[in-house]
């Protein structure tokens, strides 16, 4: 029976969740991913990742500070945002958000504080006037640094990192659950959603760290810690394989079951999402980085500069892949009419309150914060190439 393809419920002409809701999981993904990478060293003791551990932790914090901004910008009544903490409805998948977010914030801030404590104390000792006062508050007037305090700080970092990993997974897996638990939406409703979200978070976390690390080191002409980069690139390769495979396997099983769901979704994939999903997310930004990273990981005799360039390129592409993945999930799901008879349209305006310029700014601001932090507390080792 042939059916006409153009009916959406009248209220569905409006897309409720805009590009802001695309950015939120994108940014929290980087938060969770970067934190997990920093924990590879702090908790699991991977010495090779030591040079990037602090940088990863601070990056996680920088993204975390701005993760809620797109949400607040999207809320119809942002001044009531705290209702979610004051009167949470625990039947709602969304109600835990504030609590998980705050717990995670506390863990990250504490972990940063403990890993920077010694540096704060040094600065306190070497500064004068108002700066000394500020550092004094920052170290809580305790300028003791000795073997014992170092041991104690390190122990606490391990504990915080240990708690932080599950909380980071919850923070992001839970965003996936938020989508996956909506039975009304064919494209979202799958128990795999939160697992896919966690893996894609780690991919975006690794990718942003590598991308920024190499970029900054080239720009400042300082020596790249090749061991760290190689290991991270390997992890990136592994995690992107898992993330993409999971997503494709899920699609395969939906398609093989041949239910009504697939009848609708295949029109979505072959129609409205053809470019952003099939060509860009899967084709260009998954397969190409996979091949590039396969080369850099498996080919031992490759020229170092070329290798780093390929790693940099693929991490940049994977950053876009994850962005497209968020777009395809959040927007793609809303394009399908709940009448199962058609699709609606959406593309953000340039100057809108929830438009492209605002989105661009929201992505850039965490990097500016990171740059400012680096200016005060440099987190990269300063070995120039000539050494």
């Amino acid at each position, binding site marked *: *029976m042939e059916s006409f393809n153009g009916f959406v419920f009248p209220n569905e002409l*409006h897309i*409720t969740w805009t590009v802001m809701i695309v950015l939120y999981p994108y940014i929290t993904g980087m938060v969770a991913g970067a934190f997990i990478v920093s924990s590879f060293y702090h908790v699991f003791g991977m010495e090779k990742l030591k040079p990037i551990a602090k940088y990863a932790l601070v990056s996680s914090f920088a993204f975390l500070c701005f993760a809620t901004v797109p949400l607040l910008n999207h809320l119809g009544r942002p001044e009531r945002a705290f*209702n*979610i903490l004051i009167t949470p*409805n625990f039947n709602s998948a969304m109600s835990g958000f504030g609590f998980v977010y705050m717990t995670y914030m506390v863990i990250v801030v504490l972990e940063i504080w403990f890993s920077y404590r010694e540096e704060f104390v040094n600065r306190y000792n070497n500064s004068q006037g108002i700066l000394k006062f500020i550092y004094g508050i920052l170290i809580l007037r305790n300028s003791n640094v000795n073997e014992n305090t170092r041991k104690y700080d390190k122990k606490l970092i391990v504990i915080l990192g240990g708690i932080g990993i599950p909380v980071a997974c919850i923070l992001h897996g839970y965003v996936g659950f938020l989508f996956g638990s909506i039975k009304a939406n064919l494209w979202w409703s799958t128990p795999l959603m939160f697992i896919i979200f966690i893996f894609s978070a780690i991919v975006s976390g690794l990718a942003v760290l590598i991308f920024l690390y190499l970029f900054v080191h080239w720009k400042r002409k300082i020596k790249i810690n090749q061991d760290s980069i190689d290991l991270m690139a390997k992890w990136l390769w592994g995690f992107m394989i898992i993330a993409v495979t999971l997503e494709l396997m899920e699609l395969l099983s939906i398609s093989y079951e041949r239910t009504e769901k697939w009848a609708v979704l295949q029109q979505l994939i072959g129609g409205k999402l053809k470019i952003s999903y099939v060509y860009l997310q899967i084709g260009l930004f998954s397969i190409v980085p996979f091949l590039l990273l396969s080369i850099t990981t498996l080919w031992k005799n490759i020229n170092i500069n070329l290798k780093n360039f390929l790693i940099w390129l693929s991490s940049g592409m994977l950053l876009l892949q994850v962005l497209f993945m968020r777009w395809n999930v959040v927007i793609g799901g809303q394009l399908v009419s709940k*009448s199962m008879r058609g699709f609606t349209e959406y593309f953000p305006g340039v100057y809108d309150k929830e438009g492209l310029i605002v989105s661009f700014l929201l992505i850039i601001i965490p990097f500016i914060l990171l740059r400012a932090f680096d200016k005060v507390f440099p987190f990269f080792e300063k070995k120039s190439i000539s050494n």
Partner: protein
Amino acid sequence: MDDIDRRKFLKLGILSSTGILVGSLYAFSTRGVKKDFRTYDDLLKYDWGFIVDTTRCIGCGSCVRACKVENNVPDTFFRTWVERFEINKNEAVRVDSPNGALESFKENNFSADVVKAFFVPKLCNHCYNSACTQVCPVGASFHSPDGVVLIDKDHCVGCGYCVQACPYGCRYIDTEKGTADKCTLCYHRIQHGELPACVNACPRNARIFGNLKDPKSAIRKILHQRRYGLLKAELGTNPKCYYIGLDLEVK
């Protein structure tokens, strides 16, 4: 005699005007007015339900217009709308609802050969297991004791999660107020014993409203006599809006 009459007259006048004054004060004071608000226990005697008889609907759109006027529904958003289904001899199905049928239906979808056509009015199903109240993070969406799904607009944060969760597309974010909105079964009217505006406006009695807890109510009688269907029953939302003559094509 005149004096006595005058005195009597004045006395009577003062007394009666005082009487009117006191009486009217009493009559217009709030003390004596019966409160509209029923107590919680009173509300528990009701469980408001809805029947849509698709076999009776003629697609005039009166209900949509009545709803818009009664509830100040913003343009391009709908608390209720009417869908038109047309099937031609090639078994092709066409569905439309131009502007929610606010101006009724003007043009045919198929130029000819329509073998079957019908209208289906839609509104909030006020489900027993509503997905929208389940997902509201702040508890602003709730079930009233008399079985109506309502939104506390002074508490809603406008996150839009309920809009996503409703399988029937019945909710929207009121862009002016920044909060979620939907059909309330005209809660402000049914409290006074009036009918919802759409039920009142329907010229064909295609919409039937009543108390499901009352065994003698018309709605219960009709449900006992007629065969009906539910929208997307497989999702387990347990809707309370019953569709008589529901076609397979309607989702």
